[in-house]
């Protein structure tokens, strides 16, 4: 579709916009500035949701780590085959099995009174969880920076809107008329 404005609009230092119509370059820039407010708002909303989800995920991992480390802190036992382990009850074994840790290794005690949880597998699992947490933390730091930038940009866009309103800018008045109709 052809543009409808006749003014040569210099956009930044790059190129020109051939237009035909009555809107000036400033009007278009103001329209863009105001339109960006919606975009910034949506981005912030999305970022807030992601941050909340991430925080919940981190809290879950911290709880898991705390639980796994409590096993690691138990007195070391030795399995019949000579591996370092800690002793766990049948209930603890079932709970750990249901948690879906692929790297944990168990040896059932001969008398059936419980299990040995091998230290090697436990330490591998703990390391994996710590790496997962570190990954989420890096991502979280980046998000915090993005939030700050978006908040500042949104404030600037809102200031522009407020100034346009105070100055009874024509573009804004047209938008308001649309709102009320």
């Amino acid at each position, binding site marked *: *579709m*052809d543009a409808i404005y006749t003014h040569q609009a210099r956009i*930044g230092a790059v190129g020109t916009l051939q237009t035909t119509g009555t809107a000036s370059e400033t009007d278009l820039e103001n329209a863009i*500035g105001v339109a960006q407010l919606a975009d910034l708002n949506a981005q*912030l909303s999305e970022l807030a949701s992601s941050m909340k989800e991430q*925080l919940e995920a981190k809290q879950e991992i911290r709880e898991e780590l705390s639980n796994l480390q409590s096993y690691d802190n138990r007195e070391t036992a030795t399995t019949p085959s000579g591996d370092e382990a800690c002793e766990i009850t049948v209930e603890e074994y079932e709970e750990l099995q249901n948690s879906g840790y692929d790297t944990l290794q168990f040896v059932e005690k001969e008398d059936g009174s419980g299990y040995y949880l091998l230290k090697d597998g436990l330490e591998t699992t703990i390391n994996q969880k710590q790496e997962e947490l570190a990954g989420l933390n890096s991502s*979280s730091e980046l998000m915090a920076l993005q939030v700050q930038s978006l908040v500042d940009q*949104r404030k*600037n866009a809102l200031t522009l809107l*407020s100034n346009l309103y105070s100055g009874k800018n024509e573009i804004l008045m047209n938008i308001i008329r649309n709102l009320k109709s």
Partner: protein
Amino acid sequence: MNLDKNSQTEERAEKTLALLEKEEREFRNHWVWKELQCTPEQFFKAVDQHVKSLNIPQEKWNVMYEQTKQASKVRALERRTLFNPMNLKMIGALRV
């Protein structure tokens, strides 16, 4: 300790979320929405309709939009850097 660093990061994330909530409240309670007698969402819809009525080709709008967006990011960063108390202290503008 690794766990301490993790706690600090989580604490920062929680502070960021609290900041977001505060900013959101301030945004929604801004006087301009009261003056316009609408919610931000209603206003955004009206802006969208107005922009469509300008009949600017999508590609050209996208280019202009992207350029303004980049300029806005730089302005926000400059403002934050310029008014960062740490930077002002470093240049001796503030007494420690």
